[in-house]
């Protein structure tokens, strides 16, 4: 008897809940007026977002999106783009390693996917712009595609971002790790001919891509010199993988070591090697070489790759422009002073922010996702990059080349700066057979409306 009553009550509850549920959906149906509107876009604003590491192991990259935000705020103060203010929502995803702690303050259950869901399904962003991390952004590829939200200027050199037929709304920003690896290969063949080469890479598409580039560029790396680390392993505090990797390369006698590592790991590798008395020629991916982020005295004389102007290049108009923007409104960089050094992260963030604003301006007053993508594929963008930024229907990678730079100590004390001895920009394709070519070093003028 009691059981029967219970069942009846529960059934009633279920039925009413269902009715309520559909009624709620019905409310949605009746407000169908805005069916053609583009999510995130109103007459006077456009909302975009990004998932970025604002804490945790990759926190040094927090400056990238902060710099982009500073540029957007500057544009907003000058009337926005076609009358629309850009609202940039940055959510901390801790490089998708929140579960491991590592100084993450976003909560242990935070993932890149969960934060992206907040941006897409709650904040209704027009697109994500400048979300960061190879593995992190790989994890939301399907989600972004299924929901039709453009994933723009992913901060990573994986070639995953240039698959226009599979992911038409996905765009990378920097040169691919394969291209970087091939350019490094050419450098090694010229300057360190015949020396034994070692490699330590992050155990994801970052390390895999860079290694493939070196091999395609004709560098022979013995299998016991091909080493990797897992970013999540920093949880142990001792970063044990790295200690083993470094001592392996030392005992194998590697004279040149290529690093595809993020700044925290670059720094740890350099320190470990110094401790062990091991000083090979370091060649470091642009992703992990920014001297201010790495903040290590042992990085001097390392070789790196750079698609942005040297941070101390006073002749480049973008450098004082960005500096004045940051100094005028210090919300994003409260500790930045007239004497503070500019770093590569700041340039990077400003570069894609300008690219986004320019595309938005070129698209005109009516903004749609399809229209934006089409405009992006057909507009030559004037931004900080030292090669023209020109996407197309087949190229969604972004920048296609860069210079070889070395890192030189500025006197005896830090900071150390990139030094670009020759203004020769190298470019190539991902595959083995595409030769390396040179491009002119281009300094794009600052568009009048941004001055």
């Amino acid at each position: 008897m009691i059981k029967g009553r219970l069942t009846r009550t529960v059934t009633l509850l279920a039925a009413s809940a269902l009715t309520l549920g559909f009624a709620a959906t019905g409310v949605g149906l009746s407000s169908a007026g805005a069916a053609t509107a583009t999510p995130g876009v109103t007459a006077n604003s456009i909302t975009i977002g990004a998932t970025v590491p604002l804490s945790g192991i990759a926190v040094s990259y927090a400056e990238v999106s902060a710099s982009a935000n500073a540029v957007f705020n500057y544009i907003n103060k000058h009337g926005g783009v076609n009358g629309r203010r850009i609202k940039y929502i940055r959510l901390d995803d801790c490089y998708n390693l929140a579960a491991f702690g590592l100084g993450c303050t976003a909560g242990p259950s935070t993932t890149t996917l969960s934060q992206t869901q907040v941006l897409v399904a709650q904040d209704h962003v027009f697109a994500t712009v400048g979300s960061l991390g190879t593995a992190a952004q790989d994890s939301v590829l399907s989600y972004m595609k299924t929901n039709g939200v453009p994933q723009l200027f992913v901060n990573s050199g994986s070639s995953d971002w240039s698959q226009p037929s599979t992911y038409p709304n996905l765009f990378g920003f920097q040169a691919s790790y394969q291209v970087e690896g091939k350019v490094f290969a050419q450098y090694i063949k010229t300057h360190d001919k015949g020396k034994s080469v070692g490699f330590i890479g992050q155990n994801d598409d970052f390390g895999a891509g860079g290694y493939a580039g070196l091999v395609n560029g004709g560098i022979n790396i013995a299998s016991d010199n091909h080493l990797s680390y897992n970013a999540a392993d920093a949880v142990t505090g001792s970063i044990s993988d790295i200690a083993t990797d470094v001592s392996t390369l030392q005992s194998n006698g590697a004279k040149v070591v290529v690093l595809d590592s993020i700044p925290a790991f670059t720094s740890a590798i350099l320190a470990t090697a110094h401790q062990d008395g091991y000083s090979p020629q370091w060649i470091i991916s642009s992703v992990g070489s920014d001297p201010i982020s790495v903040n290590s005295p042992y990085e001097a004389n390392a070789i790196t790759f750079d698609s942005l102007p040297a941070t101390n290049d006073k002749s480049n108009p973008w450098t004082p422009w960005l500096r004045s923007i940051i100094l005028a409104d210090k919300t994003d960089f409260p500790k930045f002073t007239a004497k503070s050094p500019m770093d590569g992260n700041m340039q990077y963030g400003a570069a894609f922010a300008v690219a986004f604003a320019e595309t938005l301006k070129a698209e005109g007053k009516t903004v749609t996702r399809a229209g934006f993508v089409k405009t992006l594929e057909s507009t030559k963008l004037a931004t900080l990059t030292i090669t023209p930024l020109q996407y197309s229907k087949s190229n969604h990678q972004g920048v296609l080349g860069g210079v070889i730079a070395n890192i030189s100590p500025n006197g005896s004390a830090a900071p150390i700066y990139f030094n670009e001895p020759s203004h020769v920009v190298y470019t190539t394709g991902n595959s083995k057979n595409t030769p390396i070519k040179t491009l002119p070093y281009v300094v794009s003028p600052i568009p009048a409306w941004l001055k």
Partner: protein
Amino acid sequence: MNFLKSLRVQETTRARLLSVSVLTIVALAISFLLPPVADSQMAGGAAITIVILGLSWLIGWSGQISLGNSGFMAVGAYAAGIWAHHHATTPLIFTFLLATVAGALSGLIIAIPSTRLRGPYLAGMTLAFSAAITPLAQNFTSVTGGEGGLFLNSLSTPSWFVHFFSGPNATIDANAQWTADLAVLVAGISFFLMANLFHSRTGRAMRLVRDNDVAAELVGINLGRTRTLAFVVAASFAGLGGALYTVINATVTPQTFPLTLSITLLTLMVLGGIGTLSGAVIGGIIYAFSANLVDHINALTGVNPTSNLGANMQGIIFGALLILTMIFAPRGIAGMGAAVQRLRKTRRSALASSSAVD
């Protein structure tokens, strides 16, 4: 007589089916009321519920401690991920079955040595298993995608379902809803299967082995086989939960299955109620919405969520809850409801007897 007995069994199974269906429908209805982000959280909670069902069965019903369930979950997740990565068009049900079998097999492999161990030795053995899974996934890069993992196609929402939604975000809302509903459905089916298992002959044998293994052997129960079976069942549920987690997130990475996940699962199970079916659901709900709870508490107390204290709030709250639960409600939140009911019953009967005296 025999006929009557079988009838009764059928009746209870039917009653179980009815109540599980009703519960599932309620959950589905709730998903319609929730915003899309909460729907996505609900989907994750449903997957975890399945894992906790298995864990609750293993620990609560068979009395064997396991810290390896994040490992079993990872096995199922990778089985589903690797299969779906290469065979995108396979029906979902096949992917789920495959992952369940893979989970069961890993459970069998772990169970064979494990069932000879007890207490802390067993815990250590299973802990080693879940600790080994992450490096395995990280290092067999050609199969598992290394640290970057594998990514799959997101679930495709049927167009008839999208028609229920409107506005510029209709597809986004529909996708989140569809994913949550599918997850709830799979959890509902798992719940029904486990409910039957709890009340089956095997379930009873399991409890006897837990409470008195000598008595169990005396009545002809094979201890080793029964304990092994407990592991296999728990691991298959964990495998299915892992597969569901992979499918709803359209990705599988080693970072999803840190060692701490096993501890989290254990905590959730204790909070919900060890060895209870509803406890698993409660655990799943806590998993799904704990971040919201933490945000809420941070906001209430004015703690900066990115401060050291704020960032560790989840650990603090769950640690405190766990201690309180162990002291005041050893059978968890689910047990609390039952305890209150028992209390009311005793009081009612006490009242009745006192009136009889009058």
